[in-house]
């Protein structure tokens, strides 16, 4: 290594000497190769600009370039995404080879835009933000989407309720569609990725999170992630890009010296962070004392039984009182006594285990001028924090490219993924499958070791008061698994007619089969006769497109390019399976054992055909105009409305170049503006009504039922209009940068299933209506405050985004649209004229001085009318990232912020209602009155004043009544938080150290994730402010016994040879 380096340097110096001899021509031609400074591999697509003439070119696949520069004092710059800009004096050299150094900055010069077109950042009229390259190097989260947390302005990533291995919810610039998809489109190597989630958790129904589509992508394969935020950036991805696009480019083989092998290994331990804080003082029962149990005589002494209908822990304090022991193996054995004692403080918390995630990848890449390839293999294992939850994913990716002739090149990728998930946690508030609900609501006198022993000895759940189901039985016998086989791939061919004209054709496929199996033993609460479900989801998406691109740079002062393309996208989702109920023989999980079998099948197919064009004109490399237009034909729309067109226009003005304002302080300044429309189609099958046939006959007769939805025959597309303005400034060379964007978007003509009077005969009517407005500002700031000669460097980046979502209009005659219609706590709604996502419920009734009014029975009163209690969308989000590097060391810590949102907590509701929360230890046993006032009334019942409340109450009146009486205010929590999201300490071994080893590079990183809520307002309840029930818009801000969040600690080892 060292020798090679020396040789290269010598050659370079010689070259310099030779070309120091002045030449006399007016213009000279400079050529050379641009390499990656890290590993010497050639870099393709590096932009070389002659600063004097603004003439520019890019390097080819071998990193080679040729450009003509004026004779004399000329400078050329080399810019490339993710690398430091390098500017050199030509000094009459004709060969200039350059090694670019990877930068950790976000404000780089070129970026991958729609359709995979690499553009100089200066030319585009909208905001994009790239994930810093170094954040990709250490695989630290199983789900790639979670990499974005806190790093990109305006992008909010929420954890799923299912914990590690679950889906991620990504929202860019706020929620804009009432019922449609609000998540961005993921595009991998130019091909849209299917990110469908099947059967996620709902409030009332059973659901499980088996992971989203993006979680299948091996982080180690990723070269770059770029976020295109608004429709302005995404008009060319069509309707699916209306909520933003996350453009992922995977690594490809590089022409270079032999075969490079990269190994990455990652081990992460997940430790339970927050779990609801439970009281440890009061037993099951009601009104502090009444058990209403039967009396049983043991050895001549009468003892009370604990009735099995007890679910609330509102009984007396546990002081060793003796009851008839319910925790026995044999109910017919002579009765024994049970002493009511507090159980160990963490008995329930200790149910959870440490999670473990391992992620190992090996990749080999190589190539020559003709062909290159990269092969990678990955294995990820997850052991969840609840017993029996485990997942395993393997992925193999082969990506290859070849130059068939000088004009024709082809490229292809195939990625096979196999994922096996066993028993991810069940979700939802009333689901008997949700073990967290089970644990958090369970009576506090229950001896957990007995439950464990009972299950282990008998294999049965057993039945005891104040337990919905034995949690050990639940996680061991209620089994749910999924097996996913997925193939993602593409082939593309590019024909270069001339240096300025090329045609690309590409077809991609993303196809997976997921087989799920769910079984409930006989006697399980929600399937007492036994239940078995076998089902298979077939998901297939094909995308084919052609793109003709012409560029012209050799016009006087002008550059121009035009791309014209067409695409066909087909998606199909097929679900088939059966449900078997009523087992003949308990314990046999085969469909032949079910007396009642319901087969089911569903098929959704959809297709979009598109033509589009994108043009750019540049003037003197400082003024650019971009225009796009796209027409889609979508199969899901009404017969006469298949077709919809949407254009965009954008401009960019590099004023520092135009007015020659370059100074030491302001190095670069750009203003940008754009206006865009983006269409969005609806779900399939919204255009017809009809009848469903019942699946099981009765007395041999078939049954039919009318569909409950009134279809909209003339369904039209949604349309999102968006305008954005922004600036991109750089100071002190490249030491500091500021990017500011303001935007406003209106999503109109939304496809909304509105609730109508069921007396119409139907529950739902599809309408095209509404207008939701999102306004906001995004600021990204980055700087290198310290950069010393000794190598010490401090990089800081900060992003901030504020978004305000407002409902301008809903359907005619409809004032409000409920996003979650089923919460026990409050409703989340979109109401005309109000902020989107208001939480609406009942407040405490208060005296004029703000004190809560107490009812005659000593409980708190609530108002009779609904009030706005909060909003589920944050006022602002942001992140602060600091990196200190010195020699090979680098210390990085990321803090992210979510501020000004409220959460609708069903967990707290249950903790209040059941009296399991730690905070319910107060006001028990008629010990003190609730703080507040009582109304003083005159003879006519008019309130004449207030006096302090003195009524002593029992725990049930103090607490349960708040839940039963629906005092929503009590259960609305402030979801704001500041979190130390990530701390990474890594060390890159110096080349001098490695030269005698076979390794080219070795890097070790210690990684901590989700470490510490620096600030949160969850009232010490032990609930995380971060989780969501599922990834849909309507679940935002709904917290329903989510899996407890974890802290992760890991080590990452990366080496190449």
């Amino acid at each position, binding site marked *: 290594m060292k020798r090679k380096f020396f040789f290269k340097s010598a050659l370079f110096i010689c070259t310099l000497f030779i070309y120091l001899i002045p030449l006399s021509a007016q213009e000279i031609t400079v050529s050379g190769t641009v390499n990656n400074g890290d590993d010497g591999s050639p870099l393709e697509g590096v932009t070389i600009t002659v600063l004097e003439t603004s003439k520019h070119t890019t390097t080819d696949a071998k990193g080679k370039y040729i450009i003509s520069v004026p004779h004399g004092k000329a400078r050329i710059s080399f810019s490339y995404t993710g690398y430091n800009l390098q500017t050199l004096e030509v000094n009459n050299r004709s060969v200039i080879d350059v090694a670019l150094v990877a930068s950790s900055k976000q404000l780089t010069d070129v970026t991958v835009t729609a359709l995979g077109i690499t553009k100089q950042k200066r030319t585009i009229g909208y905001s994009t933000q790239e994930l810093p390259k170094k954040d990709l190097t250490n695989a630290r989260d199983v789900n790639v989407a979670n990499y974005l947390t806190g790093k990109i302005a305006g992008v909010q990533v929420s954890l799923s309720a299912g914990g590690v291995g679950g889906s991620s919810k990504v929202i860019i610039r706020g929620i804009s569609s009432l019922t449609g998809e609000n998540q961005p489109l993921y595009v991998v190597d130019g091909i849209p990725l299917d990110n469908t989630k099947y059967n996620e958790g709902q409030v009332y129904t059973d659901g499980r999170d088996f992971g989203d589509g993006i979680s299948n992508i091996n982080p180690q394969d990723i070269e770059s992630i770029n976020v295109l935020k608004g429709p302005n950036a995404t008009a060319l991805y069509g309707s699916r890009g209306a909520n933003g696009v996350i453009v992922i480019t995977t690594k490809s083989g590089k022409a270079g010296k032999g075969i490079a092998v990269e190994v990455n290994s990652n081990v992460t331990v997940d430790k339970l962070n927050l779990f609801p804080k439970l009281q440890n003082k009061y037993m099951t029962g009601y009104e502090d004392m009444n058990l209403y149990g039967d009396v049983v005589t043991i050895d001549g002494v009468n003892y009370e039984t604990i009735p099995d209908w007890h679910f609330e822990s509102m009984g007396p304090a546990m002081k060793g009182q003796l009851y008839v022991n319910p925790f026995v193996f044999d109910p017919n054995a002579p009765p024994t006594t049970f002493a009511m004692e507090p159980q160990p403080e963490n008995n329930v918390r200790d149910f959870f285990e440490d999670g473990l995630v391992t992620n190992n990848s090996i990749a080999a890449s190589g190539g020559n001028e003709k062909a290159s390839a990269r092969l990678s293999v990955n294995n990820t294992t997850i052991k969840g924090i609840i017993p029996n939850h485990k997942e395993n994913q393997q992925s193999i990716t082969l990506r290859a490219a070849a130059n068939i002739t000088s004009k024709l090149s082809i490229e292809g990728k195939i990625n096979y993924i196999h994922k096996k998930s066993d028993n991810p946690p069940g979700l939802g508030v009333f689901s008997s499958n949700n073990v967290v609900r089970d644990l958090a609501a369970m009576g506090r006198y229950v001896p957990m070791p007995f439950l464990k022993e009972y299950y282990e000895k008998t294999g049965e759940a057993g039945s005891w008061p104040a337990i919905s189901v034995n949690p050990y039985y639940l996680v061991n016998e209620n089994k749910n698994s999924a097996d996913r086989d997925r193939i993602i791939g593409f082939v593309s061919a590019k024909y270069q007619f001339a240096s300025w004209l090329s045609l690309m054709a590409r077809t991609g496929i993303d196809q997976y089969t997921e087989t799920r199996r769910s079984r409930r033993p006989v006697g399980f609460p929600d399937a007492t006769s036994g239940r078995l479900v076998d089902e298979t989801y077939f998901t297939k998406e094909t995308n084919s497109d052609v793109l003709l691109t012409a560029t012209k740079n050799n016009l006087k002062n002008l550059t121009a390019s*035009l791309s014209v393309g067409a695409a066909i996208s087909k998606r199909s989702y097929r679900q088939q399976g059966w449900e078997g109920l009523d087992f003949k023989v308990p314990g046999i999980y085969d469909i032949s054992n079910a*007396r009642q079998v319901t087969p089911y099948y569903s098929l959704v*197919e959809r297709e979009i055909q598109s033509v589009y064009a994108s043009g750019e004109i540049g003037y003197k490399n400082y003024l650019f105009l971009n225009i796009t237009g796209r027409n889609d034909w979508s199969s899901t729309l009404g017969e006469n409305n298949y077709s919809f067109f949407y254009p965009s226009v954008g401009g960019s003005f590099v004023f520092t170049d135009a007015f020659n304002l370059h100074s030491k302080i302001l190095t670069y300044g750009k203003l940008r503006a754009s206006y865009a429309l983006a269409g969005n189609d609806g779900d399939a099958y919204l*255009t017809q009504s*009809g*009848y*469903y046939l019942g699946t099981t006959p009765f007395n041999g007769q078939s049954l*039919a*039922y009318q569909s409950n939805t009134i279809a909209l025959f003339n369904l039209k597309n949604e349309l999102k209009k968006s305008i954005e303005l922004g600036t991109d400034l750089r100071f002190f060379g490249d030491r500091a940068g500021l990017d500011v964007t303001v935007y406003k978007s209106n999503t109109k003509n939304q496809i909304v299933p509105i609730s109508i009077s069921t*007396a119409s005969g139907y529950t739902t009517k599809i309408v095209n209506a509404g207008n939701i407005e999102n306004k906001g500002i995004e600021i990204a700031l980055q700087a290198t405050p310290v950069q010393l000669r000794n190598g010490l460097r401090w990089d800081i980046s900060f992003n901030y985004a504020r978004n305000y979502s407002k409902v301008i209009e809903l359907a005619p005659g409809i004032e409000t649209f409920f996003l979650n219609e089923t919460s026990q706590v409050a409703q989340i709604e979109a109401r005309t004229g109000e902020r989107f996502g208001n939480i609406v419920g009942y407040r405490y009734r208060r005296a004029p001085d703000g004190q809560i009014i107490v009812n005659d029975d000593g409980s708190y009163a609530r108002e009779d009318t609904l009030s706005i209690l909060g909003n589920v969308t944050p006022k602002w989000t942001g992140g602060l990232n600091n990196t200190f590097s010195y020699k090979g060391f680098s210390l990085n810590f990321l803090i992210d912020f979510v501020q000004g949102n409220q959460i609708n907590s069903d967990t707290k509701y249950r903790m209040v209602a059941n009296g399991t929360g730690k905070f319910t230890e107060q006001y028990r046993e008629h010990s003190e009155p609730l703080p507040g006032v009582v109304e003083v009334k005159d003879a006519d019942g008019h309130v004449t004043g207030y006096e302090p409340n003195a009524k002593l109450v029992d725990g049930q009146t103090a607490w349960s009544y708040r839940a039963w009486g629906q005092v929503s205010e009590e259960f609305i929590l402030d979801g704001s938080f500041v979190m130390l999201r990530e701390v990474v300490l890594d060390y890159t071994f110096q080349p001098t150290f490695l030269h005698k080893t076979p390794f080219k590079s070795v890097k070790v990183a210690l990684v901590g994730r989700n470490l510490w809520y620096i600030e949160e307002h969850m009232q010490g309840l032990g609930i995380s402010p971060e989780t969501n029930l599922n990834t849909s818009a309507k679940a935002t801000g709904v917290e329903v016994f989510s899996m407890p969040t974890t802290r992760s600690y890991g080590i990452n080892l990366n080496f190449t040879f």
Partner: protein
Amino acid sequence: MKAYHKIKSFSFILFALFLTVSCTKDFQEENTNPALVSEELVAPEFLLSGVQYGIKGGMSAADVGNYCGMTVRVDNAPFVDHFDDGAWNATYTSYCNNLAAIIRKTQDDPEMVNKKAIARIMKVWIYSQMTDIYGDIPYFEANKSPEEAIASPKYDLQKDIYQDFFKELKEAAAELDLSKASYDDADFYYGGDVTKWKKFANSLRLRLALHVRYADEQIAKDNVSDLSEADLITTREDDASIYTTDDIEANRNPAYNNIANGADPAERQDYVGHQLAGKALLDALIGSSPPTNPLDPRTKVIADTAVLNGATLNPPHALFGFRAQPLLGNVPVENKYPYGAGSTSLFSLFWYVPVIEQPVLRSSEVYFALAEAALVGLISGQDPNVYFKKGIEASITETQDLYNKGKEMMPNLLELVYGSGFDVNKFLDYKEMKQSEIDAFLASPVTMLTGSKEEQLEQIINQKIIALYPNELEGWTEWRRTGYPRVLVAENEQSTFHGVSPRRQHYPNNERLVNSHHFQEAVDRMGGTDDLLSRMWWDANTNAPHEHPGSVEWRATPWK
């Protein structure tokens, strides 16, 4: 410029190529839900079966609540303020939507006249249950085709709805034609028997005429006077009923499923213990004071003695005396069972067999209706006593059937609930209604109408309640219009009902949100609040004896 020309022509070619390749002609097929059957293709048979299977014998107790004291739920809340809106939603979005679709489909086809007429009769039967629960309801604007559906239909006056019921029933009965095709096996009630459907339409008209007799005697008279016994359901064969089947869980008697799904006998006994035989029903069977008459033999088939699982299998019937009292709101359990939870009579296991009759409208009810009509002069020249006795006899036959059908399934059931040590034969022998017991009962004064007209009416309704069981909605209706049976209700401090049973049900909450204008119109007609104690149009009997044992004062409508 040549280059640009090239680009232009290229893009043109590309575009042209795309247009030729692409076409949207497959779109309609792609966007067609394969599971959806169009209205043209769906058979009336499927739609009717769907309705009858869904509604079975009528709105269940869970839909309407138990307001007349037939059953008492052990969960301490017999009078729940807000029931789920299952009955409302199922009626509108499923049952009546299906029936309206049949009527639309068969409208213009003379060959389909029976299918149409039966759908019209069914529709009246289902809507009548709805209006009897709520009062004014959307009727004329409800259940249109998807194209013509009215998203927020207006609420019609109950009187107008009832007038339409009578018109529909008369027209439909007249339409029925023996020479035309019918539903055959798709009709679970009558196998498509047109003659029986005609009797059903007339018997339903009789039922509904009695409903309205306190509000408008003339309407009642008009609809009873043209009916003779021969037009009505008067035999067991004519009874409209649907039987559950034992093939799959969903088709079985739900009460059986509750037991069968219990983990062990203790849990199953627990389920059985959750439905207590109500005081109103047991009082009707036994009499409210210590009985001197021979035991009504139906009692032991319908209910179990309080200590069945203890020693006494052949007890004096006084043991049925500890009856559950329906109480309002959340009250301590000891108030509810003064003698302890274990002291209460339960419904017998004959109600828990997997295959059970779910009655829609039976001859026993018709006879009691005729008895009342004769008593109050809606029909003339008939002896109410004869009808009264026929009603009791019909009810005894029905109860006999309950015993006979249940007998075969009882050994399994008893083992499920009480384990293997139970003496099945002794149990069945005790439960069997011996002919001597029946004869003795029929000879007792209980089966003879005596006293004032009002006292005779009370006798009729008390017997009718027994015959109607488990039709709790109809029982509630009888209580509302006549004041019988005398239901014991008690007051507690949280009660908003002031010690009286509700007279109607709240409208579904969703109506307040999505049909607010028409909802408010209907509520305004009741005096401004969607009150449980408001009286609907036919609930107009000012002389009903509201001095129940709980001593409750009379309150006028609207409730204030």
